């Protein structure tokens, strides 16, 4: 099946972005509306394609559109062509849907910013790049979108780059992403060397003939890519800093969509991972580590956005973990991704709403009792909260519970470990999210007299409300009757493999709920009483470490940055002294010998004559010797 509409999904926002940038200040008055409409129309196209797809039988739902031959050198043939299947349409709807909501939210949120037009241009650019990422039909096309979203993320994190630390955060995000991108490009190279093609279909077709080593290589490199983009261990440190961007950006890019691209990548490459068990195991391990990592960091953050960012990291850890569980896991991963898109975006917008009312204060220790003053924000945030900690029947319950269950049921001792980690993660999640709720919305007010907390305007709470509805309902909608699993089945080849189930679903669910309850209880117990406005410093070493993002930045600085800087300085000195110096030495030697020989030219005619005499002897001697 082909379709001619797919390109517009990307072209419209891309054009709009370029258009708004080129027009400059002339478009200040209407740029935001224009961009929002474009985003909405992209959603329209997506919805249209979705309906069309529903109408077709499940095995022929995928549509493609070939645009032109992009790169063609020898056997390296890459077309610019798009693929819309069950997996990508899920993303398209998420991206354009949540994206449009966030466009709307931003109209109000950014209304006082002089550069609002530029912000919307960037948002549109992001939508275009993200759509290209999920629509590309080959790894290389995906790569374009992959780096495109990285650029968009960079631009948006650094939107207020007049503040040096924000600019630094943007740069850090880009660099960390680039490290991941190395993985993606290497994966593509291995794929080309192995299969002679880099399109998804081409690789999938030939995958059975490839050596395990090659597949493991590709898998690990793809995992590296995913860790960069999805802020997984060990490349997760940029995500916290990325909160420097305006909050809608955090909601859209750093919660709902871009950071989940790694999950998409692994799911898209299911045919590789399913044949490379080692790589798959690594995926699981990375997921498990990150979900704990994020959760632990989340417990220590006082900055509301950073707490949410840590939570994002942790939740994506769940998804990555799920993708590592083989055919059964992909659907749950994507499902959690979608529900997470709703509730986390909703909570971020809520956080933005709080900040909006609190003069951009982000420290939760200076909040308190905001529930009464910002009822809508509190309710939407609360619904998201219930979803994330996995309280039935909210969305997160369905998706996360499935992941924990699948984890426990994976083979051998591995299952116990990762299941345990997932369960523990759920407990910690419940703890830190409850902490956020308590610190922000309940208890006594701790804010300055100057602040005048107030509810946000409709343009802001409207999208929050819609996302809250999603947080409530999406889980049930997607999982009832295994709807989403069978929807995705043609893409991920999960043909109902029967597992020897170690734990019955009921058992796992019960364990999870108990864990959540414990987490909530601890949080309530700890933060029930007064919360100091300034974070106490006499805390135990673990808290200190958690506050420092589990020392990841320190590690990076000590292991990468400082040696890198030292190397740079060393090389700069080397270039001047050693390499250029070597050249200068050659020059100096020539000049030195020049001066030396000049001394023989002493001006005395007799010494010249002596030279001739000497020459005569030398000449005679040499000719004589040669003759002999």
């Amino acid at each position, binding site marked *: 099946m082909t379709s001619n509409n797919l390109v517009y999904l990307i072209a419209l926002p891309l054009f709009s972005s370029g258009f708004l*940038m080129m027009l*400059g200040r002339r478009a200040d008055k209407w740029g935001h509306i224009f961009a929002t409409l474009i985003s909405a129309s992209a959603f329209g196209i997506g919805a249209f394609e979705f309906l069309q797809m529903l109408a077709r039988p499940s095995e022929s739902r995928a549509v493609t559109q070939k645009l*032109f*031959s*992009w*790169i*063609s*050198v*020898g*056997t*390296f043939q890459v077309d*610019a062509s798009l693929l819309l299947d069950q997996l990508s349409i899920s993303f398209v709807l998420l991206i354009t849907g949540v994206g449009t909501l966030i466009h709307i939210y931003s109209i109000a949120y950014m209304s006082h910013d002089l550069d609002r037009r530029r912000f919307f241009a960037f948002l549109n650019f992001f939508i275009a790049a993200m759509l290209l990422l999920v629509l590309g039909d080959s790894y*290389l096309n995906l790569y*374009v979108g*992959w*780096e*495109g979203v990285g*650029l968009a993320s*960079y631009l948006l994190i*650094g939107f207020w*780059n*007049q*503040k*040096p630390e924000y*600019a*630094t955060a*943007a*740069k850090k995000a*880009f*660099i960390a992403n*680039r*490290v991941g*991108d*190395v993985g993606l*490009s*290497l994966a*593509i*190279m*291995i794929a*080309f*060397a*192995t*299969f*002679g*093609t880099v399109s998804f279909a081409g690789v999938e077709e*030939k995958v059975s*003939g*490839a*050596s395990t080593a*090659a597949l493991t290589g590709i898998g690990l490199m793809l995992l590296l890519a995913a860790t960069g983009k999805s802020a997984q261990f060990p490349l997760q440190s940029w995500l916290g800093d990325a909160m420097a961007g305006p909050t809608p950006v955090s909601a859209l890019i750093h919660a709902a969509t871009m950071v989940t691209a790694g999950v998409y990548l692994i799911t898209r490459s299911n045919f590789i991972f399913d044949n490379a068990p080692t790589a798959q195991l690594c995926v699981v391990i990375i997921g498990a580590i990150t979900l704990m990592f994020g959760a632990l960091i989340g417990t220590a953050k006082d900055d509301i956005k950073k707490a949410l960012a840590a939570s994002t990291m942790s939740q994506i850890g769940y998804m990555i973990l799920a993708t590592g569980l083989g055919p059964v896991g992909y659907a749950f991963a994507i499902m959690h991704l979608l529900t997470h898109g709703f509730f986390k975006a909703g909570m971020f917008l809520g956080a933005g709403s709080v900040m909006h009312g609190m003069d951009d204060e982000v420290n939760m220790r200076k909040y308190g009792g905001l529930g009464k003053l910002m009822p809508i924000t509190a309710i939407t945030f609360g619904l998201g909260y219930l979803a994330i900690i996995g309280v039935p029947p909210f969305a997160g319950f369905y998706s996360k519970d499935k992941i924990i269950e699948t984890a426990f049921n994976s083979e051998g001792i591995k299952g116990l470990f990762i299941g345990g980690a997932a369960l523990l993660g759920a407990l910690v999640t419940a703890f830190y999210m409850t902490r956020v709720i308590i610190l922000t919305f309940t208890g006594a007010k701790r804010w300055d007299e100057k602040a005048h907390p107030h509810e946000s305007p409709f343009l802001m709470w409207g999208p929050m409300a819609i996302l809250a509805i999603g947080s409530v309902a999406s889980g049930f909608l997607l999982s009832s009757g295994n709807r989403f699993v069978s929807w995705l089945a043609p893409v991920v080849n999960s043909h109902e493999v029967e597992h020897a189930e170690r734990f019955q679903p009921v058992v796992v669910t019960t364990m999870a709920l108990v864990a959540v309850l414990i987490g909530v209880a601890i949080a309530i117990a700890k933060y029930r009483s007064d919360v100091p406005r300034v974070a106490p410093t006499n805390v135990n070493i673990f808290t200190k470490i958690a506050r420092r993002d589990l020392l990841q930045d320190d590690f990076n600085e000590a292991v990468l940055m400082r040696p890198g800087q030292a*190397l*740079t*300085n060393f*090389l*700069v000195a080397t*270039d001047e002294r050693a*390499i*250029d110096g*070597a*050249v200068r030495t050659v020059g100096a030697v020539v000049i030195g010998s020049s001066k030396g020989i000049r001394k023989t030219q002493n001006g005395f005619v007799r010494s010249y004559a002596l030279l001739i005499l000497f020459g005569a002897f030398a000449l005679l001697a040499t000719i004589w010797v040669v003759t002999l």
Partner: protein
Amino acid sequence: MNYLTSLGALPLLGALLIFTLPKSKSNSAKWLALATSIAVAFLGVLIALRFEIDRPGFQFVENYSWIPSFGINYSLGIDGIALVLILMSVILVPIVIVAGWHESEGGRWGSKTFYILILILETMMIGVFAATDVFLFYVFFEAMLVPVYFLIGGYGVGERAAAAVKFLLYSLFGGLLMLAAIIGIYVISGHQGGHTFDIEKLSQLTIDSTTQNFLFLGFFIAFAIKAPLWPLHTWLPDAAKSATPGTSVLLLGVLDKVGTFGMIRYCIKLFPESSKTFTPIIIVLALISILYGAFLAIGQKDIKGLIAFTSISHFGFITMGIFAMTTQGHSGATLYMVNHGFSTAALFLVAGWISKRRGSSTIADFGGLQRVTPVLAWTFFIAGLSSLALPGLSSFVSEFLVLVGTYTRYPVAAVIGTLGIVLAALYILIPVQKALHGPITPGNENLTDITRRERIAIAPVIAVIIFLGFYPKPLLDVINPASVATLTAAGFSDPAPTVGGK
């Protein structure tokens, strides 16, 4: 019609016309130079349009006896590789003239001389790519040093005389080594059926491997200096820092390409066996260049020095692609030459403009330019993104082709080379942050944004960068047959994929 001769003669004619102008008319000299270069660009495009993609071998061939007693011919001809490089050159020249409209005014001599030199240089650039006689190539190769030398020394800034001398000496040294090698191969041709300098005939010679190795080195060192490859690069940063932006564009964008072009056209074509022998060493040098250039770029305090070192890194990629000996590597490297020409042009021109406005090219003197001069800042940013090979911009296609082409034959080298991707992000984003972001540094508050003239100059460059990123096919279609021909003649074929290979 002698297209190539006309193309080469046109700028010379323009130079002659400018020479006859009275001294006072420096403005008409500018316009005349611009008109000439635009005419040349049009003729270049015309030639490109008449180029037949599927015809093998050289096209637009011209062949006249020049110095028969040495078997030297004036023979020109272009294949796809030469075509795209000539096209790039003739397009860059008018851009450089427009961009540096006032560049000629701060020099030691008047504008007239400046434009005469530029146009003479253009002739040489066309000649060096179009020559199919090794001797003729050498003549252009060496003679083009002279106008550049005077352009750097006469119109540059800072330690311009020293930089010009360094440039000239390095180049002459390499050129003379090449001369020895040229003489060597010429003498060998004399033993095998008559003295000749014809590239095709020379490539048929059988040369024993020791001699071949030495001759190869003679050519290669000259090209490695030009390209420049680590550790023969130290002239470049000095030259780039001292030259005017326009000169730097021509220097890095076009002249240095002669080195990498020469590696394809002469090193591999004439000495396939030695190319194979030296490949490991050259790949290592290329890798060092990639990483070393990147680190040095990160460590630069001067924006022009930074661009120069990024170029060293890029030339590492190009060289690696060439010596990977795969079609992807070769086509990628050739495309890289073109793309690098344009992205470096953009970087240098914008860097030149902001340096001129600020009166300094030290990165630390800038800051917050995005708030003061947004359009300039964005242009610089886009050029930087192209330099770091962001997908969707032109350099990405070429860089990726180089890496893929290298990986299929030398996986380890490609893996190390990809580290350059990360470093590229660093060396572009660090100066971007320092110069464009952050609070407005004192002294920058009143800088003016881009002018209309500058817009006209930079717009085509940016357009090319974006267009070629999305649609490199027109160039690749032209380059591919030439790459395949070079590799086939040298006896290389692409490694087949391990699964389902042909």
